[in-house]
């Protein structure tokens, strides 16, 4: 993560929550891993600010969509990390968010590229 490069995009408001939930669908992860995963999967296009990652994680935990537990990492038995995992309600939440997102992107796409859509 060097200085902001021009081809990086700021995350849309509210989408970070959905991305975190989606990331956790693969299994428990800690904050660092989540941030790295999002960046790596999008080829470093999406940039996750720590200033919004941790509040978002805690907000999701507070809502009961994810749950946290301190555990040692597989290779490093000495150090403990706070692992987040998806809860049942979190899974439901992800589905609603996802369908909402789909609707939104389709709607936007229809306006932006009317010809291609039809």
């Amino acid at each position: 993560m060097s200085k902001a490069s021009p081809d990086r995009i700021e995350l849309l408001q509210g989408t970070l929550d959905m991305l975190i939930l989606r990331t956790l669908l693969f299994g428990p992860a800690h904050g660092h891993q989540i941030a790295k995963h999002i960046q790596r999967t999008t080829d470093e296009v999406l940039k996750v600010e720590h200033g919004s990652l941790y509040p978002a994680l805690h907000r999701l935990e507070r809502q009961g969509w994810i749950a946290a537990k301190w555990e040692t990492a597989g290779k490093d038995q000495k150090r403990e990390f706070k692992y987040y995992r998806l809860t049942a309600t979190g899974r439901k939440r992800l589905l609603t968010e996802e369908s909402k997102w789909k609707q939104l992107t389709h709607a936007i796409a229809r306006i932006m590229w009317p010809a291609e859509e039809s």
Partner: protein
Amino acid sequence: MRWHRQRDEDLDRELRAHLDLEAAEQQAAGLPAEEARHAARRLFGNATLVKETTREVWVWTWLERCRHDLRYALRILRKSPVFTAVAVLSLALGIGANTAVFSLLDAVLLKQLPVRDPEQLRILTWVHNDKVPLHSHSGYGMRDLKTGEFISGSFSYPAYQAFYRNLPQFSDLVAYAPYQLTVTAGGTSDYADGQFVSGNYFRGLGVQTLIGRPLRPQDDTPGGPAVVLTYRYWEKRFGADPEVIGRQIVVNQQPFTVAGVLPPAFQGLFPGQGVDLFVPIETVKALGVPWYSLTNADSWWVQVFGRLKPGVSDAQAEAAVRATLGGSIRDYAGKVSDAAIPQVRLASGARGVGLVRARWSSRLYILSVACGIILLIACVNLANLLLARATGRQHEIAVRLSLGASRARLLRQLFTESLLLASVGGVLGVLLAKPLAAVVLHYWAGNGSGTLDARIDARSLAFTFSLALLTAVLFGLAPAWRTTRIDLSPAMKGGGRGAAGSIARARMGRLLVSAQVALSVLLLVGAGLFVRTLVNLSKVDLGFRPERLLTFQTDPSRNGYHGQKLADLYTRLRQRIAAIPGVVSVGMSHVGLIEGSETDDGVYVPGRRVRPSDESNLLVCSDSFLETMRIPVVMGRDLSSSDGPGGPLVAVVNETFAKQYFSGKNPVGETFFLGDPKDTASLAGPIRIVGVAKDAHYTGVRETVPPISYLPYTQRTENLRQMTFAIRTVLPPLSIAGAVRRAVAGIDSTIPVADVRTEEEQIDDSLGTERLFAGLVSSFGALAALLAAIGLYGVLAYSVARRTAEIGIRIALGATRGNVQWLVLRESLLTVSLGLLLGAPAAFALTRLVKSMLYGVTPADAVSFAGAVLLMIVVTAIAAWVPARRAARVDPMVALRYE
């Protein structure tokens, strides 16, 4: 707070782990360790800001949810105003009544005196036994309910002085004695509740004055006397004038200087029994109280409390007090056995002297139980209403649960609603508590309650708050639990109707109504007993005619009138009052009838074997007394003006006296003696019986009529003191009160005219407790029955609505309207019967506790029980009738179309 700290540490740890990982990555990319850490930190950005925003997530979401829940609850409650009104009002009444009774209970039983270190105070008492050589003893004794011993709190003044000199176990010892005084100031005279106190009284208690100074040991001299006023008296008598300090007032004809005024919280040592002013104990003689001797160790009249030094045990101090007391007794009685020295008991003085407490506590406990029941009923009623409403919201809740709302979240929301109801009820309850407490105090006004420190203070508010919280839990939790535990799919499909969970909910509703019925029966039986007691008491034939009688009290002996001079004054007063237009006749007696006090003495009839219980009540009165009260003389003659000081001693006795001492034979012309029959020297007489009067009540309405001797005051001038005047008029009695005052002032304006009221008021006041109980418990009972009826109606109406389809099928298959009505009535009957079966035995067990308050009825009074049960059946039948009719009117076609 702990929760917050833990969360903070947690966050720190999490962020540190992240930084370490980042640094490790940088290091792996080839940076040296130190630089790698810096790079990681740089990349991370402002760590503190990250922490701050993360922390805010928690606080805000919590507050947000509270706000949401509250707004949601408000919206829901606003949507059903009738439900909200019933809920809030019944809660307000329950909480208000409990707060009012608590504030009284607190003032009488719980609150500590507003003095320094109240827990160190000990009241000195001793246990009565026959061997104590004691001749003059002034009251303040009481029977200990637990041990059955008779405890007295009076000592002689020399004994107190010996305690003060010889007992190092106490850091201070104080003497005091209550006494009624006449205060003349600003041109008027009135009675005041005085207290003789040793000069170290205020030092011993650690009480300061509001203005001026307290009494000091150097004030305790027969001359140069000073007084200290209580706040209440200062307000009432001197208009709270701060200039009163240093002013001269006249107490029992002696000039005193006002030294100070006490703070409002301090009302002496007797909670509920007020004091007006404190005077130095050395002035007893100057104030004309000869029977309170400062030198005679055989005259026991002062009460003593001490401040026990830390580290001294009560037993040690008791032994020391007893040794000193023994010395004092031997000073006047010579050698006496050790058994003649009474056992000494130290009682805690932290809450004041317990006489009032004993008299009040049982009534207050009964009131608390009644109030507790009414609150419980309000809770049960609310639980039922909430349950019914929850069923209406079943669909909504099912939808929310299936959309992913957690059950805890829903529970919290429903509970917020209960909490809101309870809080509003609590606030209204506090507003209601003050007038309710005032009502109770009004009925008990005759018991010195005017000075009771029964404010709605922080303690009562804390009580109310906990009560409101408790009620919210009681009525809110069960329905909320029930509501959120539903099977989703049928609830979603059927819109609530016919759902399986609703059967359990109906059962719970019926049980709650049964509980309400049971509690209502408790109150109604109590109401029946108290109402019948009051009716019996008001039907008692008093033996005299109380209508159109004005009474007042006076005691000119404190204005310097004694003996013959006082007797002559009374004769003149009587003539002057008799001359007022509208006055038929004027009678006087040393205590008024039904006033609650009495005088009695032993009786000795020559030639008759003496029994220990040979006693007679005495009434020292004028020759016009029996006629004025309309007590008929059935044999012989009435007292007459010719029964003067020089003539033979005479008396009129009542029928009970004649029956007891002359076995019903005509006693006119016979003689008897008054005094201790075992001690011939004490006997006064012979007294010749000149007439027999019909039995009439003397002390109170409840007491059976004892033997009474009516004695002319003209023949007992040596001990003559106060008199109660009874004036029979043809006018409304109170309309001549002004003329009576002017008549008395026309003879001597310093003579106080106190307690002006009608005889009927006097009788009513004496039944204040009974009227209060009958009124309060009846209204509680009626309210309880009403709430139970509402509850039953709700349950049945719901049940009919739920079973509309079933009823439709039944009618379609040929059931008659009667069959259908019976279906509903049977449900009601089962519910009510269960309540009655629970309530009646509980009432049977509880009413025994109020036995001592009843008159003319037994605790198991069949009329009260039958009345309560019948009333409950009628009320609930009316409540069941409406849903039963609705069920009978179900149209099978319409009902079945719903399915």
